[in-house]
């Protein structure tokens, strides 16, 4: 049997007995065989002494049991680590931040408590996955969509709390922003409802976020201040139609007006879907896999110090390939979105040489045949297609064992895309990792870009060590340029939080003040996003 560090054997044994009394013997796991299922299969520390592993797992199926478990954990000072579906792969999976914690596995709490077509909202427990909610909606024939992230087996609550994003309309793509109302078990076992949920008899828990007083929901995301047991989310009423269109611009430098016009188009509400940027010149082959670039392009991309803009432009002109392709998406009434696309074309026409390719107008709902052809998350359909990354395929005969994500926020400008490309190209040479000629931002959010770069996880310790060193250096290089990660695996959470260091780490110090007030024994998720309880702080902060 494993026991948590610093906990007396007899206390742990007593705590386990009390956990069993709460949830039943069947739902307390202590054998190595069962606990190995809680290892993070995508851990960059896999198989090393520093790998974060659990000393137990307890799986309640209702909130009263969560409260009871918190009280027992407090009584014996047992570190616990709540997970929802445990599928945050690439950002931690089901393993704790602090080795020896007891995983509080909330997967069994999988009730869909409410779906309101009229209010376009839902209320769910942590174990509810995107697949679960979408199946429920389909079975009931409700005309609402869920904004889903790439892997559909994740938890709505877990994904929102880790600041995940999706692919439909801007209003719903930021999953934490799209939540409305929370229920939280505090470390002492007390139960809190936020917003209108605090007012007995209110019918507006999923309608008005704030209630009255401080808006406190944010402190329960990417933190360890409580255990979220319910969350409400706003859903997207099924749109009438969908339209996509692509803007092509010829020159490398066109990225600057391209991004500026895009930002206007989105902030003004002209295009409400998720834009996607691509480059047949700079991103073909190379880092994104697929067929290798033809020899002339390969030589251009391999230019020491990176290809020069004038050479990129000359190549594109010779081959009649525009440098950038920006794909835009529109949801709404067919006539309205066709007019929005027309207005979009007018705006981008100010870039000399811009060309446009309208995609098909798709009347919704999709037919079964259409469902199989589309990129599902854009239509609120959960899928696991994202796991083609690293998986074996015809193009990839040697699969990985997973990946970890490096995901810095950069400014939403063309200049920043160029600068980040330059910086990370240089870093890739320094670190011996292929990043390629440019980095392509992802556009979940209206006001900033995020770069999402995957580093592979292997079962080779030396390779993992090298990739961890690369990740640490990338975090450091980012911070030197004012770029910080929006999310990171547990092994890097201290480093990433440490980069947000204004005024002698005032923000982290505030987090610690809150931690000490809400969870004085430090039982919940020690170390999550760099927030350590007082008794572990000294060693971890150094």
């Amino acid at each position, binding site marked *: *049997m494993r*026991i*948590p560090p610093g906990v007396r*054997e007899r206390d742990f044994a007593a705590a386990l007995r009390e956990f069993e009394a709460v949830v039943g013997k069947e*739902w307390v796991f202590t054998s190595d065989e069962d606990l*190995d*299922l809680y*290892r993070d*299969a995508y851990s960059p520390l*896999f*198989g*090393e*002494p*520093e790998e974060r*592993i659990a000393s137990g797992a307890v799986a309640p199926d209702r909130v009263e049991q969560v409260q009871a478990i918190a009280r027992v954990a407090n009584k014996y000072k047992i570190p616990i680590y709540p997970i929802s579906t*445990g599928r945050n792969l690439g950002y931690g999976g*089901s393993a704790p931040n602090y*080795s*020896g914690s007891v995983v509080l596995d909330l*997967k069994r709490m999988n009730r869909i408590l409410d779906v309101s077509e009229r209010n376009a909202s839902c209320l769910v427990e942590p174990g509810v996955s995107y*697949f679960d909610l979408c199946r429920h909606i389909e079975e009931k024939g409700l005309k609402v969509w869920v904004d889903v992230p790439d892997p559909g*087996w994740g938890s709505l609550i877990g994904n929102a709390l880790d600041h995940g994003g999706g*692919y439909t309309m801007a209003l719903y793509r930021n999953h934490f922003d799209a939540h409305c109302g929370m229920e939280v078990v505090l470390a002492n076992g007390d139960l809190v409802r936020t917003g209108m949920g605090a007012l007995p008899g209110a019918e507006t828990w999923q309608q008005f976020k704030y209630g009255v007083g401080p808006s406190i929901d944010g402190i329960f995301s990417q933190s360890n201040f409580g255990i979220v047991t319910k969350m409400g989310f706003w859903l997207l009423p099924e749109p009438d139609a969908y339209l996509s269109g692509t803007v092509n611009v010829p020159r490398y430098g066109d990225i600057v007006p391209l991004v500026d016009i895009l930002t206007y188009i989105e902030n003004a509400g002209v295009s409400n879907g998720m834009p*996607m940027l*691509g480059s047949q010149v700079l*991103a073909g082959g190379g880092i*994104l*896999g*697929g067929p290798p670039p033809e020899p002339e392009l390969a030589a251009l991309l391999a230019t020491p110090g990176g290809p020069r803009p004038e050479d990129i432009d000359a190549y594109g002109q010779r081959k009649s390939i525009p440098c950038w*392709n920006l794909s835009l998406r529109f949801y709404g009434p067919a006539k309205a979105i066709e007019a929005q696309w027309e207005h979009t074309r007018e705006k981008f026409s100010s870039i000399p040489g811009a060309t446009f390719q309208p995609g098909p107008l798709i009347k919704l709902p999709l037919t079964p045949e259409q469902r199989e052809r589309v990129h599902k998350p854009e239509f609120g359909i959960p*899928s*696991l*297609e994202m*796991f*083609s*990354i*690293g*998986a*074996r*395929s015809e*193009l*990839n005969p*040697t*699969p*990985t064992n*997973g*990946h970890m994500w490096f995901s810095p926020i950069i400014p939403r400008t063309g200049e920043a895309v160029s600068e980040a490309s330059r910086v990370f190209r240089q870093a*890739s040479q320094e670190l*011996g*990792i*292929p*990043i390629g000629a440019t980095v392509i931002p992802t556009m979940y959010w209206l006001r900033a870009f995020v*770069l999402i*770069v*995957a*580093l*592979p996880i*292997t*079962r080779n310790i030396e*390779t993992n060590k090298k990739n961890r060193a690369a990740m640490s250096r990338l975090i450091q290089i980012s911070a030197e340029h004012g770029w910080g990660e929006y999310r990171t695996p547990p092994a890097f959470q201290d480093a990433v939080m440490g980069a947000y260091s204004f005024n002698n780490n005032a923000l982290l110090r505030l987090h610690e003040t809150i931690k000490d007030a809400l969870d004085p024994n430090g039982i919940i998720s020690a170390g999550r996003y760099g927030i350590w309880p007082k008794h572990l702080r000294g060693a971890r902060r150094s």
Partner: protein
Amino acid sequence: MRCRQLVSKPGAEVDLRHVRSKPCLYSVSPGLRSDVTRATLGVSKRLLAGLSLAFVLASGARSSAQSQPDEATLKQGAAVYQYWCATCHAAGRGMPGTAALAAKYKGRQPGVPAALDARTDLTPQSIRLFVRKGVSVMAPFRKTEISDGDLNALVVHLTRPRP
């Protein structure tokens, strides 16, 4: 009760730590998502060897699983398959599990279907091994996801006699 203080125990039953690999890094652009695949790591020869052994060991157990599965268990197993496996292993596009197995068997075992539910060669032990140990990018499934009872039913479903 015998206890030991937790330091950290890797505890991997399939030791893959000495497998040679080559590093890679790729970035994800949603617009080019379908192109995102890249060679990164040589698959473990030891894992393959271990799995082959499992297949061999399992061959004897297959007949017992095939004998008269009851309707309720078959139904439960089909539901487990639909819920947990079909999202990645069904026939059709956008199924990384199916694509991976198609690539795995192409040219080597041409008769083996890529979609899991169409297979007739799966053994109870191999199914249990993959569910509880995972393989490549497929992480293992916890007992709060697929309970031992569900796993037994899944085994019955995937090894059921076919017409």
